[in-house]
């Protein structure tokens, strides 16, 4: 019998524009871009040049900080541009995609016979290792640091997130295969987490070889760090791996069929999308191809196109590209309007964690929230807000203060290894003083991750 963990703290932000469970084909992308900037702590080095022909599965770049794995092309075509920023930082590799995708010839591996190291090497060489990330830090896992657990969340609790089961439809065999591979490669227990209400009852028992844990409660119950905190908290020096369920299936496809699956099924959502649906697209698709022939609401200040969800996603614009791990594109109205005596208005149309607006009388109402800040940055004043949306035995405000003062020992004491920037997204949302805490946690993790990378480089002297 699966264990159920009830979480009370958190918040489901009620947004308009949820995707109906109909699947549409995105028009074939003209260009795709794979962006090293989607990876945490990466020091990318390109393996291709403009003009090179690539196949689906051809390595594009690797990470000098974690040189074992390759990031591969999801499509076949021609590299048209190696995009670089200031100081020649690699920003992306742009590929002009073929109309029909040709896959690279990938040697097969016998997953039953191969040992864990050989299997890991295989995943690294052919692009699937990039799907395995680690807590803490959210960087791609180091193949030689074994985790204490692997988490595969089968639900996403973020606003307007897709149903993971819908993303997995027809891929259950590959999903099972991927779980088996993860179990072997990690040598650790694999936890499949589902939600008591948003997952179907039989889903958890439809796979084998995993420990099934059920979560109940609002967002951020789907966040891996929250789940790990309640399954087995991460101590200093410990790691947990996590892989998005759809990507587990892609690992399974690679091992079972010897081809890299470059597809990405995603939910196209948000109040500015006229007909929110699920879309079958390619990893790294251009927004232009995803949005082609789709109607958007016209709004006073235009729309914001977000790769990912409204709390943690990236604003990419119409010219942008889908993020590496994103299974959701959210489009909401920009909100640069000024409201006359807005602070005194009854606020039937304002969504708030507090009950200072009359909207609290209609708890199930859904909102077309804009990108408006609803205020200005202030010194930290109101206490108790962050704690309401932070379902862990961690003091978020005190941890942020330790980050602010650069006190690493205090950060460790207060649980810096158990959290991720995304766990602070609701704090950031709810903050009366509009303090942006995700970037603070990101910066703290970058520093600690940098130390980890350095310690792996230096030869150890005794």
């Amino acid at each position: 019998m699966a264990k159920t963990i009830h979480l009370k703290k958190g918040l489901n932000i009620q947004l308009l524009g949820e995707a109906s469970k109909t699947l549409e084909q995105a028009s074939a992308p003209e260009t795709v871009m794979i962006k090293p900037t989607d990876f945490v702590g990466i020091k990318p080095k390109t393996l291709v040049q403009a003009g090179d022909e690539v196949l689906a599965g051809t390595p594009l770049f690797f990470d000098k900080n974690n040189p074992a794995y390759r990031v591969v092309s999801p499509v076949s075509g021609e590299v048209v541009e190696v995009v670089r920023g200031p100081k020649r930082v690699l920003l992306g590799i742009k590929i002009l995609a073929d109309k029909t995708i040709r896959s690279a010839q990938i040697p097969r591996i016998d997953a039953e016979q191969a040992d864990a190291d050989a299997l890991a090497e295989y995943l690294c060489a052919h692009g699937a290792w990039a799907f395995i990330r680690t807590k803490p830090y959210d960087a791609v896992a180091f193949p030689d640091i074994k985790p204490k657990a692997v988490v595969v969340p089968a639900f996403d609790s973020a606003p307007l997130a897709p149903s993971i089961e819908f993303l997995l439809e027809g891929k259950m065999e590959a999903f099972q295969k991927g779980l088996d591979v993860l179990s072997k490669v990690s040598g650790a227990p694999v936890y499949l987490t589902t939600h008591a209400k948003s997952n179907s009852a039989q889903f958890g028992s439809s796979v084998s070889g995993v420990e099934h844990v059920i979560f109940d409660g609002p967002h951020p119950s789907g966040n891996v760090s929250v789940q790990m905190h309640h399954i087995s908290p991460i101590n200093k020096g410990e790691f947990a791996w996590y892989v998005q369920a759809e990507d587990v299936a892609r690992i399974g496809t690679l091992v079972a069929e010897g081809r890299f699956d470059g597809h990405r099924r995603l939910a196209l959502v948000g109040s500015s999308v006229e007909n929110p649906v699920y879309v079958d697209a390619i990893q790294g698709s251009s927004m232009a191809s995803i949005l082609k022939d789709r109607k958007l609401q016209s709004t006073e200040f235009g729309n914001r196109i977000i790769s990912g969800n409204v709390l943690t996603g990236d604003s990419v614009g119409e010219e942008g590209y889908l993020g590496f791990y994103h299974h959701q594109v959210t489009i909401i109205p920009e909100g640069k309007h000024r409201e006359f005596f807005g602070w005194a208005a009854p606020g039937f149309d304002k969504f708030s964690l507090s009950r200072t607006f009359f909207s609290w009388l209609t708890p199930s109402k859904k909102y077309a929230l804009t990108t408006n800040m609803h205020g200005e940055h202030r010194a930290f004043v109101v206490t108790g807000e962050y704690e309401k949306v932070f379902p862990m035995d961690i003091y978020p405000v005190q941890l942020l203060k330790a980050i602010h003062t650069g006190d690493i020992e205090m950060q460790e004491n207060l649980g810096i290894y158990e959290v991720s920037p995304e766990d602070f997204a609701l704090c950031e949302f709810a903050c009366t003083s509009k303090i942006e805490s995700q970037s603070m946690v990101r910066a703290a993790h970058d520093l600690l991750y940098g130390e980890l990378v350095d310690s792996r480089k230096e030869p150890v002297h005794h």
Partner: protein
Amino acid sequence: MKPLKRIVENFEPHFAEGGKWRKYWPLFDGFATFLFTPGHATHKGAHIRDGIDLKRTMSMVILAMVPALLFGMYNVGYQHFLALGEQAAFMDMFLYGMWKVLPLVVVSYGVGLGVEFVFCIIKGHQINEGYLVSGMLIPLVCPPDLPLWMLALAVIFAVVIGKEVFGGTGMNILNVALTARAFLFFAYPADISGDKVWISGVSNQVVNGYTGETALAQFAKTGGDVAAMGGQSFASQADFLWSGFIGLVPGSVGETSTLAILIGAAILMLTGIGSWRIMASVTLGGLAMGYLLNGFSGIFPDNAYLAIPPYYHLIFGGFAFGAVFMATDPVTASQTPTGKYIYGFLIGVLAVIIRVLNPAYPEGMMLAILFMNVMAPLIDHYVVQGNINRRLKRLNVATHG
């Protein structure tokens, strides 16, 4: 509102970076964001944000104080006419009180916001909404006849020494309004304590034998014989208690009516702005200490305050007002949920100890809250340390177990 918006938008460039009045940007921003919510969009982090901001939060607190303010105006007039032994209509009492209280409010806001603006211009940061609440709290905890220059001095002291030297709103250690109150109490004791100050406009002409002592002091002096009390007299203890609950007793402008304060408490709790943990634990702490001390009343019959029924402490004096509006100030209270319980409970305990065991200081609540303001970071430190110890223990089990 288009024309007004256009005016604001037309003026904006002059105050913005490179404009001729750049120095006065905080002033402009303060007024502009008062009229119109700022039109900023998110640019990093979460793309959507909660509708709440500090202006909304502070307006809710002010809204919660309005019942106490209005009742206070009425009661100032009521006490005045009662002490003179004159009959007066409801509106006369209210207008008399309003005439006394409004200048206090105007001076408090005028002086306080003036100081804030000056500091914001010097430091070049935006006007913080914190003083909107302090500015209303200060007149509510003052006696109605307080000379306005004293109030102005207290406000300047509180804002400069109590807040700005620490870095402004959000950085202060002591509650700003109570800092003002404490300044008055220690600098001008004759005007803020004793038996002459709680009733407005009656210094020389009270009816014979009428005393304007606080209700609790009179109650203790007479040993609970409410009919023999020197000022207002009451038919029965129940009548006395009821008057205290409604608020028809002498006292600071806004603190007498437990009922009006309870309405405010309901608003604060309902909106989630005020910490129910603090309000509840202050009440509990006061009751607990009250019952404990009450148990000793037989042993020490000399101290009349020991004999006061413990729940009287909640109803009379500044206890309820302090619990609801002062102790809950998020900047100066404990920040951790567990810390809030401890902080609140100790405020209640200390307030009653000071009241009962040291009647020379009738300001038990003020002193208790200020003391616990100072102690709040210490409480949080130990609460957080508990969390740290749990984590270290877990780490030791993981590495050695």
